[in-house]
């Protein structure tokens, strides 16, 4: 039984006729596993996880065939039951650390909130634990930092605080939504190392949302590629990178600058991701796909098991390769 099991998740804003932002997504994460979700901006990767956390508000509508975490059906939980899980067993670190912390309260206050809410710690015990958490995320001068306000911290520090808050409840699954995108390059590596070290130490599941394929190759065991709200390929990490099955995955890999060394132009797909007004009636990639056939333009492919994992394509690539 996987730790996290999502089947056919749909998120749309507006009524049932509105274009879905997340369309028929299915994925799963096992205990202690690292899953990466990659895709362009607007592919729906963040919304997927926010829907899981129950952070999608009106006018968003979340539907799914199954949305289970740690054996519990997230769709059937009421708000209070969900709040007992969120922040404790299931927590999230967001993209921009500079705005993720409340500017009017100290760092210590914000960490102790989690401790009080989920572990029932108060007073000295809470203070001590908060201190330990800050030390665990490798913040120097932790004792002083507890009394600091967020605007007094740098980006890297703020993200460490955010991570501390996320692991305070000893989560079984941590979702990191582009945790290093807003940080300096030198800090990015440090934060990623920290996240992975924590993941191994606590045996947490980790869902890493990113658009950086290099990070995925180094850290994840499985990867889910998203395009225009759909999962187009889900597979093992080394395998997908060596033999991508979906044309979009192939294009993503080809677009990495290192793969175009010596060429005159970077390899890209023409066109842009479909927006609200121009979703194709067939496969969403069909207007841009270099391998497009008639069937692609008329029907929508479903996410089916192929040789190396799940692929959403009528004519998947590299199927001969074992």
């Amino acid at each position, binding site marked *: 039984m996987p730790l996290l099991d999502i089947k056919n998740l749909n998120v749309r804003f507006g009524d049932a006729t509105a274009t879905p932002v997340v369309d028929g997504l299915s994925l799963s994460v096992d205990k202690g596993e690292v899953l990466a979700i990659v895709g362009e901006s607007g592919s729906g990767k963040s919304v997927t996880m926010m829907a899981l956390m129950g952070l999608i*508000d009106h006018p968003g509508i979340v539907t799914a065939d199954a949305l289970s975490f740690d054996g519990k059906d997230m769709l059937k939980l009421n708000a209070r039951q969900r709040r007992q899980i969120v922040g404790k067993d299931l927590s999230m670190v967001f993209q921009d650390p500079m705005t993720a912390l409340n500017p009017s309260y100290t760092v210590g206050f914000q960490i102790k909130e989690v401790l009080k809410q989920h572990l029932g710690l108060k007073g000295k015990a809470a203070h001590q634990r908060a201190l330990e958490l800050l030390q665990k995320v490798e913040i120097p001068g932790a004792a002083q930092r507890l009394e600091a306000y967020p605007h007094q911290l740098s980006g890297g520090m703020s993200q460490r605080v955010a991570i501390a808050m996320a692991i305070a409840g000893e989560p079984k699954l941590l979702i990191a939504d582009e945790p290093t995108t807003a940080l300096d390059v030198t800090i990015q590596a440090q934060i990623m190392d920290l996240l992975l070290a924590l993941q191994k130490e606590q045996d947490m599941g980790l869902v890493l949302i990113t658009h950086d394929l290099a990070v995925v190759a180094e850290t994840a065991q499985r990867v889910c590629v998203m395009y225009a709200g759909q999962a187009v390929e889900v597979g093992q990490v080394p395998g997908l990178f060596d033999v991508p099955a979906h044309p979009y995955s192939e294009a993503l890999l080809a677009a990495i600058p290192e793969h175009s060394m010596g060429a005159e132009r970077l390899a890209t797909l023409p066109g*842009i991701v479909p927006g609200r007004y*121009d979703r194709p009636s067939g496969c969403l990639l069909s207007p841009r796909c*270099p*391998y497009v056939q008639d069937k692609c333009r008329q029907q929508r492919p479903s996410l089916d098991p192929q040789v190396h994992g799940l692929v959403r394509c009528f004519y998947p690539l590299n199927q001969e390769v074992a």
Partner: protein
Amino acid sequence: MNTPVPVTAVDQSLLYPSVYKEFWQHFSKNKGAVAGLAFMALVVFCAIFAPWVAPHDPSEQYRDFLLTPPVWLEGGQWQFLLGTDELGRDLLSRLIQGSRLSLLIGLSSVVMSLIPGILMGLLAGFFPKILGPTIMRLMDIMLALPSLLLAVAIVAILGPGLINTVIAIAIVSLPSYVRLTRAAVMGELNRDYVTAARLAGATLPRLMFITVLPNCMAPLIVQATLSFSSAILDAAALGFLGLGVQPPTPEWGTMLASARDYIERAWWVVSLPGLTILLSVLAINLMGDGLRDALDPKLKNAA
């Protein structure tokens, strides 16, 4: 096997509606704004065609019909739909005539303060070293007094009357345009397209009026709408205090001043002019809100 087929990407910008259409789509979704627009259209119509729309001459006194109630009350007459005032003048006709005055005051005061306001704001934004702070300090001083008090003070000097009311209101609305323009200009000056224009050799007037100003218009339009409604309120307040338009000219606020004595006997003389002020200002504010929501791209994406 799969062979790559050359693909031409569809020009997606053709699928999106034009700027005006998109604006109207957003604006018309706001029912309040549309209602406001409709009401104001009615007021404008009355104002333009007042002499033909009004059933009677606003200054004609019907000595036999002093303080007649509106038609739906006992004692009401069909020839005086909204009743008459203490001098026997038809209220409806006076209100229609008054719409001319209110619109005139609103329009002229907005124009009189918008143009210098934008100019000063542009100058303050483009010359932030010395000219800018001087202008802003001047505006701060003007803003130190509440607008009505400043208007009262100006009218105290110049004397009562229609023209002085317009001047007073124009002066009082000036600082907000200056501030708004300057803030918008300073925001735009850092943008790349301005740098690009400068590099291309744009002269200062061109930079000011053609490059930067059009991009600052959205908040200015909204402010102009709101100033219009404040102008009507302020003119009415001045009229009520006896400092603005003088009787017997049927300005809505002035009508309220003379009606004060009749709140026990003839409530319609008190209620109706005020109600027209309320509805007109409400309509303009609703339109202004709708404008702001339709023009501000940030708010467009909020659910």
